[in-house]
């Protein structure tokens, strides 16, 4: 029988083994019953092959409860979302790709060395690190178009912990006899067989650690292609697009808090590490209990098929800690010289230092109840092929996912070149790209509306002039109009919204008249 010694370490049910004479034991007992019942339900949903059932269970309290259940359930759900066509990549191609080093591997090894620092046993630690590095490297070599980011290792580390299991030496015979997919009599465990792709290591106490590296790789690969693409572009632009949704969600729910914290003015970079790592970076240094929150967040992302989850969780956490944040803000007013630093400092300190497990559970519950798998504003903010929008086209194929990735990569490159053009203020840029930049800068609708009115007015004027007979050839009018457009100075547009009115007025006055130059 598979024992979950290490998942006991990282799950929040460690207390079950403690004294039942404790005054809280009755509560624990109920908790125990509830979890046992849920485990049984998950196991039978697995046996009945009920994806809907599994998804519903993952979205409810406690998620998939424990790693012994998470392993098969995550894999099953993920595989149902993205079909990996074995014929898609020929064996020779696969073999080749695994020998071509990815440009980011040096960074990967730097980060792997700093992973699993809280695992006490040195043998276990180096085993986990090895599995982590192998998995990341395999994904990067298979899909060299992905860019590794610091924090991806934290995400993969969560998968490594889930896919690792231990058993004692004397249980080996029983383990190899167990059949996959059979719920045990008490329903609390889910039996697994070891496949040829298992890697293992023996600890000092003769217990053995196992990881099925193929299953681990498959899960991580699907999760990456479906949910992490935005983060793995060559720049952070699409990541920041996602972060920007946090203030918008907060604004919807509590405009006053939004204003007090100037979330309209300040870039939400404070949420970067939480979102990039689905909270696995920030919650790790805390107790084992809080670590289980991370697994439940992953449960929720996987079962609801939505990367809105981390953004919603972050927003809900902000709102749940509103009063504390406000107090901290007042206390720190003199400690920071500018508002960006102040807001970042206050939120970062409060969010991570002062979040109890109870509060986290409440936040998760709020997120689950709200069923926030989509957010209407997302469409306006993120790119067309963002993981936030493509989720509605899932289940899909690996070809489709790779095509999304390719399109996103192209959009990201375009964006980067536009931004570098914009940064080089001295070199004149084509008027068209400035228009695009302005339109894309996600400014308030007011700007977009005035843009629209402006363009409509120009066209109207143009049309009227041609009727008046000032211009014989509309092409010439168009040309002079474009010339005037190009000569306009738009550089001030991003600084102040009011500058808008003047160039337009001037433009409208002269539009359709022959260019003086």
């Amino acid at each position, binding site marked *: 029988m598979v024992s979950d010694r290490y998942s006991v370490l990282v799950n929040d049910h460690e207390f079950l083994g403690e004294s039942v004479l404790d005054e809280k034991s009755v509560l624990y007992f109920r908790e125990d019953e509830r979890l046992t019942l849920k485990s049984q339900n998950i196991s039978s949903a697995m046996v009945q092959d009920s994806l809907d059932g599994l998804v519903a269970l993952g979205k409810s309290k406690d998620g998939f409860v424990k790693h012994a259940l998470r392993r098969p359930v995550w894999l099953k759900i993920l595989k149902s979302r993205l079909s990996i066509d074995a014929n898609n990549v020929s064996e020779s191609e696969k073999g080749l790709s695994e020998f071509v080093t990815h440009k980011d591997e040096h960074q990967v090894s730097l980060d792997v060395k700093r992973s699993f620092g809280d695992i006490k046993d040195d043998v276990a630690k180096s085993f986990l690190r090895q599995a982590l590095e192998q998995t990341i490297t395999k994904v990067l070599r298979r899909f060299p178009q992905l860019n590794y980011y*610091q924090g991806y290792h934290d995400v993969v580390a969560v998968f490594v912990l889930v896919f690792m299991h231990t058993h004692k030496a004397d249980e080996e015979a029983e383990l190899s006899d167990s059949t996959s997919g059979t719920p045990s009599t008490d329903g609390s465990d889910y039996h697994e067989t070891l496949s040829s792709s298992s890697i293992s290591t023996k600890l000092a106490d003769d217990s053995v650690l196992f990881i099925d590296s193929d299953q681990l790789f498959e899960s991580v690969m699907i999760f990456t292609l479906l949910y992490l693409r935005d983060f793995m572009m060559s720049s952070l632009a699409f990541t920041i697009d996602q972060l920007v949704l946090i203030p918008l969600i907060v604004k919807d729910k509590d405009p006053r808090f939004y204003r007090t914290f*100037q979330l309209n003015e300040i870039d939400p970079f404070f949420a970067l590490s939480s979102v990039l790592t689905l909270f696995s970076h920030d919650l790790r240094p805390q107790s084992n209990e809080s670590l289980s929150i991370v697994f439940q967040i992953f449960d929720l992302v996987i079962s609801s098929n939505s990367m809105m989850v981390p953004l919603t969780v972050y927003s809900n956490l902000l709102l749940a800690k509103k009063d504390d944040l406000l107090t901290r803000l007042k206390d720190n007013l003199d*400690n920071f*010289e500018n*508002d960006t*630093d102040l807001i*970042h400092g206050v939120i970062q300190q409060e969010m991570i230092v002062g979040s109890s497990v109870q509060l986290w559970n409440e936040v998760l519950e709020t997120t689950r109840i709200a069923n926030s798998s989509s957010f209407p504003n997302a469409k306006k903010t993120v790119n067309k092929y963002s993981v936030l929008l493509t989720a509605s086209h899932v289940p899909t194929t690996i070809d489709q996912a790779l095509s999304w990735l390719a399109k996103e990569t192209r959009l990201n490159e375009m964006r980067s070149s536009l931004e570098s053009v914009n940064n080089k203020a001295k070199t004149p840029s084509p008027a068209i790209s400035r228009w695009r930049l302005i339109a894309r800068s996600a400014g308030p609708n007011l700007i977009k509306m005035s843009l629209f009115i402006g363009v409509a007015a120009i066209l109207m004027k143009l049309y009227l002039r041609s009727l008046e007979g000032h211009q014989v050839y509309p092409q010439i009018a168009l040309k002079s109009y474009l010339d005037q457009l190009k000569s306009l100075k738009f550089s001030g547009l991003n600084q102040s919204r009011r500058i808008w009115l003047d160039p337009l007025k001037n433009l409208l006055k002269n539009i359709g008249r022959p260019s003086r130059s």
Partner: protein
Amino acid sequence: MSGIRTISSSSGNVKSYDSIMKILLVGDSGVGKSCLLVRFVEDKFSPSFITTIGIDFKIKTVDINGKKVKLQLWDTAGQERFRTITTAYYRGAMGIILVYDVTDERTFANIKQWFSTVNQHANDEAQLLLVGNKSDMDTRAVSTDQGETLAKELGIPFVEASAKDDTNVNDIFFLLAKLIQEKIDSEKLVGNAGRDGNVNVGGAGQGSKSNCC
């Protein structure tokens, strides 16, 4: 812009310090920026300290010439892709520590790149300091002489340190704080650290960074 600041009127807390200094740590990934900080702030060392993602900060109050100085320490991610974000926090930094790893030549070679990034984004008045970390290691690839030569070339002070065996770690921060304090005293830099949140950003600063050492 004063929306946040206006709510302070009711709080009226008494300041527990004489001045505040914003200090930033930059340098390649894995050179030990976070380790130096943790050693200084919490006096501990963990060989497998976690990665910094984006930007992180800590506060420590120190005593400089009888004055209580609150050091606001901002730790940055080393990976190139985070640079667009981290440079946003250079604003208003009074001290910037450029860190390399004495066992890794590549991190030393990249210091010039960091120096120019700092010049581009930080205040002209910011005091810089070059630090070679991991001086305890016997797999050294960059000599102390090389470090000193580079520091002279850049016109900034230089310290070799080890977060692991706690060599010179406090010295880094005290030296920097003293240099900043001297600058404040001599150049009347104080006005810049105003409370209005609109700190002057010396964006195009190309001039020489430092006239000390």
